[in-house]
């Protein structure tokens, strides 16, 4: 038996005994996948207004879509605000365009104009959703 044949025989024996593995069974290089974020950019054109340090003496307005018991929750909010801030001025939701009707509802430029005209310093919107 030549030297090469001896080595081949030894390799075969070790492979059978599981001491040596074949190349295909050796550990593979890890696979790395890099994916794009699918959500995309967006543009912020407006930021939230600064808060009011104290509600006493301020004009707080209400806007309503007339849904989800808003006609019960707003009066409660009004009474609680009035109790905690005695000099607060509240302009109720029915003084503004309200509801979901396209021409006359809350989602309308007329509502925004009315908020400005009435001197609102903060607005509570409800009951959204």
């Amino acid at each position, binding site marked *: 038996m030549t030297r090469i044949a001896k080595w081949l025989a030894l390799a075969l024996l070790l492979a059978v005994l599981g001491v040596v593995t074949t190349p295909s069974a050796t550990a593979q290089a890890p696979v790395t996948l890099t994916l794009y974020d699918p959500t995309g*950019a967006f543009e*912020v054109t407006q930021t939230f207004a600064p808060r009011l340090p104290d509600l006493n003496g301020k004009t707080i307005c209400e806007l309503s879509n007339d849904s989800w018991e808003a006609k019960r929750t707003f009066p409660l909010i009004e009474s609680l605000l009035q109790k905690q801030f005695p000099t607060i001025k509240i302009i109720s939701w029915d003084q503004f365009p309200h509801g979901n009707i396209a021409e006359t509802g809350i989602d309308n430029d007329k509502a925004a104009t009315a908020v400005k005209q009435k001197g609102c310093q903060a607005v509570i919107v409800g009951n959204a959703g």
Partner: protein
Amino acid sequence: MVVTRQGFSQVVANAFAGLGFSPTESPTMYEFPLNMFIPGSDLSPLREHFDQIVAGLTTWKPKITKTGIIEPGENVVVSGATYPEAVDKLNNVLAQKLWTDGLPVTPATAERVKWILTGTDLPPSQSLGTIGPRMGIATVQQVAISLAMAGGRPEYLPIVIAVVQAMTSTGPTPGKTATDGDFYTQGWNATTQNTWPVVIVNGPVAKQIRLSSGYGVMGPDPQHPAAAVIGRTIRLILQNIGGGVPGIGSMKIHAPAMQTNMVLAEDEEGLPANWPSYSVSNRGFKPGENAVTCLMVNGVNLINNTNRDLADESLGLVINAILPSGKVPATPPARADMNNLSGLLLMPRLFPQTLHDVKGFDKAALQQFIWEKTKITNNPKQINIVCTGGEQSGMAVWLPNGMGNDIVSKPVALPKNWDQLIKQAEKDLGPLPAW
């Protein structure tokens, strides 16, 4: 300061995003328990949490204080010992980020997205519009990412781009032309209503990309994969760019067909004589022009047993499906323009052929007949009829209109390398199917 119901915080954030605020930061908000909706309910939760309303008006501080573009996040990187393991990990990560539709997606790697982008001559950074309610910017690149995730191919991209152009259209209402309506995506993508988009493709592009107009149209089909993939892409765009995650940004109570929406081609080869295609009769395009039309529906009314030689009976079934109450309104709707939503009638080729052969109807005659019996539109021309569904005549479908503003159509722009893309598709997928 916003008062809303439990679970609607992201809906409110999205609504503010529609006004230009950051969708990543909600306005100050008090979410009251859902059962407070019941008339006469206990309002004590509002009383107990009144301090939240006061805090929202006085001490709350926004995190985002500057205007400008906010770019998408970092790329997602995952590793695995093998490719399947890496893909599994990837899908787990994407599911946790709420970026899948519940099924595994194809990795949107740079290489795959670059391949998809060979389907357009537009630059990747070009904005196609914003998708509501989140108002994410749908660039060509972002749309290609969604198409890659859905398992798409470059030859689908021109259709997806045209669909996004239609869905981001906020033109005047009522629209003056077929291409400038208000599709109102920020509304129907967020609503509780069960409404979903239908995409109708006219022109030779439909057959070239293997979009079905035959058996099983709108359903899964290995010979015609385009509908499922394009529809899924639209879904991913609406969810990821538009923010329409169920129960978070989209409050649809039931959402049938939203997995892949409804994407279909008109069976233009099956149209009878004097029967123009939908894009010609209703949308103002020329014969042979490639166009997509998007409209919103909210249901599928099967019209069963519309068999050949039973033309009158079949028409009766159609009318029953369109107007189940049988009560024809005394006054038809006021809106007279062609973009008015008014439902969609789908009929396989032998049905209109029968009406043509037996009753001598052309398309205008059928529109007139339906209009006189239902008055669901202002005028007969507004009745939407598309021939699709294969060679038979036994069934038709009426899709009632869903929440939305307008029907919007867009032309399909093919890239310069179109012939190469179609040849490559034939190599990859085999010859075009017979039908």
